[in-house]
């Protein structure tokens, strides 16, 4: 048991801390037959919200018995082309009002039954890393020796636009931080903190409650 204690300590510490904040500006609700679309912001020069993360959040929102129907991002972008490309996407709700004055766009949104547009913006970055590891291979065999550790920080914000009122109804932000370890004694033992996965799960579940008007989310 004493020999397992250091390993157990490492397992316990290779985890993620997630903070979720919600800011509500109006009531929300969604019925059967209505849907939402979750889009990633890609206007920033330095980064763009990864498609994998958007897809992950969409899967969480539409999962479970209280799932909400989510129109796939790529399908929506193609159907609404050219109005949601990085250059042309509405950045504010005032732009959304201008978009809704275009008959073709308004009709296409109605065909999909979209009630809310959710904009995801953020990224995961490595904030710290340290340690060294060296691997060798020879006639008698090979292996790695060393130790590495790094910290990842996932920071995302979801802003929800209501297509009935053409206003923002609130936002949800998530900040997940986790430290990963990689000790290597012949064989590297990865102890990876699933930072982005936890951010996705937390944001997706909170978003589902927010849009569904769950009492726990303060509606």
């Amino acid at each position, binding site marked *: 048991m004493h020999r397992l204690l250091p390993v157990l300590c490492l397992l316990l510490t290779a985890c993620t801390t997630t903070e979720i904040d919600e800011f509500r500006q109006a009531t929300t609700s969604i019925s059967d037959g209505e849907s939402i679309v979750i889009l990633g912001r890609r206007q920033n020069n330095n980064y*763009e919200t*990864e498609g994998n993360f958007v897809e992950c959040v969409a899967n969480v929102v539409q999962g479970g018995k209280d799932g909400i129907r989510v129109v796939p991002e790529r399908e929506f972008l*193609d*159907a*609404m*082309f*050219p*109005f949601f*490309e*990085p*250059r*042309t996407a509405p950045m504010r709700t005032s732009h959304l009002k201008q978009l809704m004055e275009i008959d*073709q*766009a308004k009709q*296409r949104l109605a065909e999909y039954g979209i009630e809310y547009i959710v904009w995801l913006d953020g990224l995961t970055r490595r904030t710290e890393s340290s340690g060294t590891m060296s691997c060798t291979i020879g006639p008698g065999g090979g292996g790695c020796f060393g130790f590495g550790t790094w910290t990842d920080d996932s920071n995302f914000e979801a802003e929800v636009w209501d297509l009935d009122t053409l206003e923002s109804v609130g936002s949800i932000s998530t900040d997940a931080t986790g430290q990963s370890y990689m000790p290597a004694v012949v064989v590297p033992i990865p102890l990876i903190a699933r930072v982005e996965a936890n951010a996705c799960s937390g944001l997706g579940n909170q978003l589902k409650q927010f849009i569904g008007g769950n009492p726990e989310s303060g509606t």
Partner: protein
Amino acid sequence: MIRSVASTVVGFLGALRAVRTAAAAAAGVPVTWLKLRGRLPPLLPFLSLLMSSLLAGCAASTIVIDGDYPSPLVGKLPLTVGVYYSDELRNFSYTEINDNTGDDEYIVQGGASQLELFNTLLPALFDKVVELPSPEAADADVDAVFVPSIAEFQLGLPQKTKLKVYEIWMKYNMKLSNPDGEYIADWVMTAYGKAPQENLQTVDAGVQGAAVVAMRDLAASFTLGFKDVPEVNEWLKANNVALE
């Protein structure tokens, strides 16, 4: 070509063996060649694989842009437009040079994709689109002749820019004229696309992603900005085309 090279190498080795056998016989030295037939894989395919690996490391990689472009969700202008695609556009190719060796590193071929883009975009924008064999071939049924061309192309690779994105920037020159060649408008449009660098992603996939985003960017700009080009706007008004 690989098989011919491998065959040449095998032939050389056979000739070398014959020379050594003849030399040993002349010297009165017995020569026993270990017969390995059936114990090792056939020599020719092995040499083919070896030579192809060596040659692949030396040649430039060719990336052919291939993308799907959705039809724009806009109303059509009541015009018949003739479009001419020059050979430069049809066969568009960009070569990225290795900064260290000066050799060709990547060849990006985008001609076919450019045609696919405009053949999707223009029919959504105009009532009728006719492809012309030359700008002068337009007849009286055509309201205007449109000639797109690529004036400049830039490629940003992560290994060179030290950013974690593939980037493509293009500058287009668009020309619109009457069927008799009289100038209507001549304007420049730019297109930009980027694709994040992902783990285990090939350069081909990264460049493809950035190129498709750039061409969608052009299509979006053209669709929403065509009527706002000052000369085009004047021409449309002069021809009583309703502008929404």
